[in-house]
């Protein structure tokens, strides 16, 4: 879902709903941002403005928190987000070749989104599934023991 398809009123009521779920307390801030991020794939500035008014917290402070955490994005992302683990456990069992293949197949570098808005390619510090490295996660789907020649087949599963 993009923010463009929602009216200002809808954005506002969504923010209210999320805040209602977690409560308007300081400790709820990161969970609130996570839920909004989940809804839109990122944190549209309209939602940040609405949240700022609801919580009575300056937008600068919201942005400061939002920009700190890896799983929160202040920029729009593609329809499918690919996370590739670039840490040592995946690296020493062939991760480097998988990464090269991913970049070549998509024509993207880390952090980039394809022009058609289909893919966003991200690297991750560790996805916590190190027993089956190299690991990539596409949206919520986990792929372990990935070999370079298996990459095109994985990508082909997504429309």
């Amino acid at each position, binding site marked *: 879902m993009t923010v463009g398809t929602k009216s200002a009123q809808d954005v506002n009521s969504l923010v209210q709903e999320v805040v209602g779920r977690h409560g308007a307390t300081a400790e709820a801030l*990161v*969970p609130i941002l996570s839920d909004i991020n989940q809804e839109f794939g990122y944190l549209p500035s309209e939602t940040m403005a609405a949240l700022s008014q609801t919580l009575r917290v300056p937008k600068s402070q919201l942005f400061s928190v939002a920009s700190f955490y890896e799983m*929160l994005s202040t920029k729009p992302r593609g329809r499918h987000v690919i996370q590739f683990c670039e840490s040592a456990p995946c690296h020493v069992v062939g991760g480097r070749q998988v990464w090269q293949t991913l970049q070549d197949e998509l024509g993207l570098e880390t952090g980039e989104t394809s022009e058609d808005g289909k893919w966003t390619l991200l690297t991750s510090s*560790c996805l916590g599934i190190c027993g089956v490295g190299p690991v990539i996660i596409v949206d919520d789907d*986990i792929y372990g023991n990935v070999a370079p020649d298996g990459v095109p087949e994985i990508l082909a599963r997504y429309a």
Partner: protein
Amino acid sequence: MKPIRSLVLVSSDPESIGRGAQEVHRRLQRAIEAADLENEVVVSMVGDVGRHDALPMVIIYPEATIYGPVTPENVPFLVEEHLVERRIAAGLEASTRELSGRIAWLSARRGTLPAEQRIVLARAGLIDPENVEDYIVHDGYEALAKALTEMTPAEVINEIGKSGLKGRGGAGFPTGMKWRFVSQTDDYPKYIICNADESEPGTFKDRLILEGDPHSVIEAMAIAGYAVGANEGYIYIRGEYVLAQERLATAISQARQMGFLGETIFGSDFSFDIHIHAGAGAYICGEETALIESIEGKRGEPRSRPPYPTTHGLWGKPSVVNNVETIVNVPPIIQHGAAWYRRFGTSNSPGTKVYTILGNVNVTGLIEVPMGITLREVIAIYGKGMQDGASLKLAQTGGSSGSIVPASLQDTPLDFDSYARAGVSLGSGALLICNEDTCVVDLAKVSLNFFKRESCGKCTPCRVGTQRAYQILTAISEGVGTQQDLDDLQMLSENLTEFSHCGLGQTASVPIRDVFRHFRAEVDAHVQLKVCPAGACPMSGQLAKAA
């Protein structure tokens, strides 16, 4: 309980679920009902079984037959052959050659293989994590009952102190002492925080505990709360661990219903409740004060210590912060006593340690063994040897912030003291086993890349130091490193250790320090001869685009 003939377990770690474990589970239930066996056979999803080569895996007791990988289409045949005809379903068995970890332990119950010692993972992979009754049948909440009805808070702390339990998150601080500090303050409310922000590369032990035995964390936190006088607990869990979050939420609501959480637990005047707080992706939030900042809705930047969280923690109040693996040692210690616990491990590092075995070995996975086992034993027994018969070059212990341990130290016992004497650190228990194809410059570069992206940016030595060290290592790996670069790297490494605000920056220097100490000749070859002896570095003579 009804008598059952067979117990069927389906692995349900994220990898298994991604490969259709839930569908396998559903079809097993249907096939068993169709065969009219539902009164004799119990099917259960279990957490990660500690073996990752044939997922999803189905284990059937009492024969302890291991099938894997099992697809939904295999299920009718499997049920017909094993449960109806009572013979092995030919062709579906997981290869026994790679018997390891959890499975080895399970098989050991049949008296066939040397056993691991499981304390914290005793139930993970054996019980249904979404069924509180299953936990109770396996001695669950007995330790909490004992603590609340038979022991004073001071006695609980004493027992934990006597057990010699040390923090398993990496630092090895005595747990009993931490609890005593918090119990001694008169400032209320106090908090119990379970650090489940496991983000160290190569470490996924806490995930297995959370996914496989979530009630053990709840029970342990309630005991800690009783001991120090806290009525509220937080589990700060990695945002990426979605399945673990769901299992914990289920477990907490079950515990509330059964009265293990809430008011007047076990008829005592002790009340306790737990909140789950999911992180949003930041390695630094594993540092206890950064974690607390994050719960408070701020950027996860570490605070200055002292004051420590034991007096000024969450909302400025006294807080116990314990790692998952540490705290789940508590119920068995309370239940069986400190003397029992000290039978395992070494005298200075009692108990067991969970290790993840990764890298160039035949079998990767997870084991829980007494403290003091050696790297050589881990590789030979549990890793089933090096892949392709290669030789060990080094092991990175404890993820990026652990040490790079050369093969010459593979007979050093893996416990806190022996490792400290050898000048290396045990860290969080990830054992990344590397063969001769691994280049130390490349490994250091990957590690520094990790620190540079995970540095929170609060202090300059770390923010700039990790960035600069990564640039230099990149130059060396491209064959354009100079002698001056080596001197700079040495200095940066010392500055990181000396001047960084928190553990992240301080340990960022470890890969550099260890590589210089143990593999200096190989680094020099890159600089002076422009050769990468392992053949891993590009050595293209030009710097790659700055990251």
